[in-house]
C-alpha cells in the first residue's frame, strides 16, 4: 500500500476545498493522471461525498462535527481507496426517497451491516438536486456505506491505470 493520507476537517462547506487540494496533490503523483477525465471525476465525487455528509449526516448541526478522509493506493493492484468517516446520524438507504432501493444491496462487511451501491438511475437533467450518489456510482468501481454506532463510513474504491506510470520508468509513485 502507498502512503496513507488522512485528513480531518470541520464539517463545513468551506473546508471541502482542503480535501480537494489534498486529493489533487495525492493523485498528481501519478504521471499523466492530471490530464485524464478520471482525475476531474475523482476530485468532483469526493467533494460531493463530503458535501453530502455535511448536508445530510449533519443536517441538524452538531458542535465540533468533523469529516475524516483517508486516501491510499495499492501499488500492486492500482486500486485507489478513499474512506470518509463522520459522526453524524445514520440513514437506511433502503428507506430513502432517492435513489430507489434497487440501487443498493444489503450485505455484511467484516461482521457489520453494509450497503453496497450498485447502480443509480440517471437523474433528470432538470433536477436541481440528487446527483451525488449517481456520480459516485458512475465513477467508482465499488461504493460501500457502513452505518455504525455513532458514526458513518463510506468506502469508495476504483482501479487506476498505473501501467502508463511504470512504462514511463517512474516506478516510485509514493515517495
Amino acid at each position, binding site marked *: 500500500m502507498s502512503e496513507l493520507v488522512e485528513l480531518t476537517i470541520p464539517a463545513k*462547506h*468551506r473546508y*471541502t*476545498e482542503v480535501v*480537494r487540494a489534498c486529493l489533487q496533490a495525492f493523485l498528481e503523483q501519478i504521471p499523466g493522471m492530471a490530464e485524464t*477525465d478520471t482525475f*476531474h*471525476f475523482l*476530485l*468532483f465525487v469526493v*467533494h*460531493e461525498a463530503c*458535501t453530502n455528509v455535511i*448536508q445530510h449526516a449533519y443536517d441538524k448541526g452538531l458542535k465540533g462535527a468533523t469529516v475524516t478522509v483517508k486516501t491510499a493506493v495499492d501499488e500492486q493492484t492500482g486500486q485507489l481507496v478513499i474512506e470518509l468517516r463522520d459522526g453524524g446520524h445514520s440513514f437506511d438507504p433502503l428507506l430513502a426517497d432517492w435513489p430507489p432501493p434497487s440501487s443498493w444491496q444489503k450485505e455484511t462487511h467484516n461482521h457489520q451491516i453494509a450497503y453496497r451501491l450498485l447502480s443509480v438511475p*440517471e*437523474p433528470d*437533467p*432538470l*433536477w*436541481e*438536486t440528487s*446527483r*451525488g450518489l*449517481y*456520480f459516485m456510482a*458512475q465513477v467508482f468501481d465499488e461504493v460501500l456505506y457502513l452505518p455504525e454506532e455513532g458514526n458513518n463510513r463510506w468506502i469508495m474504491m476504483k482501479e487506476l491505470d498505473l501501467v502508463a506510470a511504470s512504462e514511463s520508468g517512474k516506478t516510485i509513485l509514493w515517495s
Partner: protein
Amino acid sequence: MLELKTQGLKGVKVLNLSGRFVAHTAPQVREWLLNAAQKAPARVIVDLGGVNFLDSQAIGTLVQGMKRCREQGGDLYVCGLQQPVRVIFELMRLDMAFKIFENVEEALDAFQHTESAVDA
C-alpha cells in the same frame, strides 16, 4: 472564492464567473440569477470560462436559474466550459438541459437568431 462580473449586451444579461463555483459560493450566483430572471424576456448568459471547479450545488443553481428564465420567456445559456467543468457537464448529460457555447459571442448570436425567428 468566486468572482462575479456582470454586463448587459444587446438585451442579454451576462454573468462572468471566476474561481470555485461550489456550495458556499453558489448563493450569490443564485441571488443574481433570480434577480436577472424577474423581468420577461429573461435572457441570460453565464460565462464559466474562469471556473476551475464546480459542484452539484452549482449545477442545481444553474438549473434553477435556467428554469426561471424559461418561465419568463427567455433562456439561460452557458459558455466557456474548461475541462474540469466540461467533463462534469458531459457525465451529467447537462447538454440535454442547457444550450452550451464556446464563448459569449456565440451565445449572443444564438439569442439574436432566436429573437429573429420569433419576430418572423
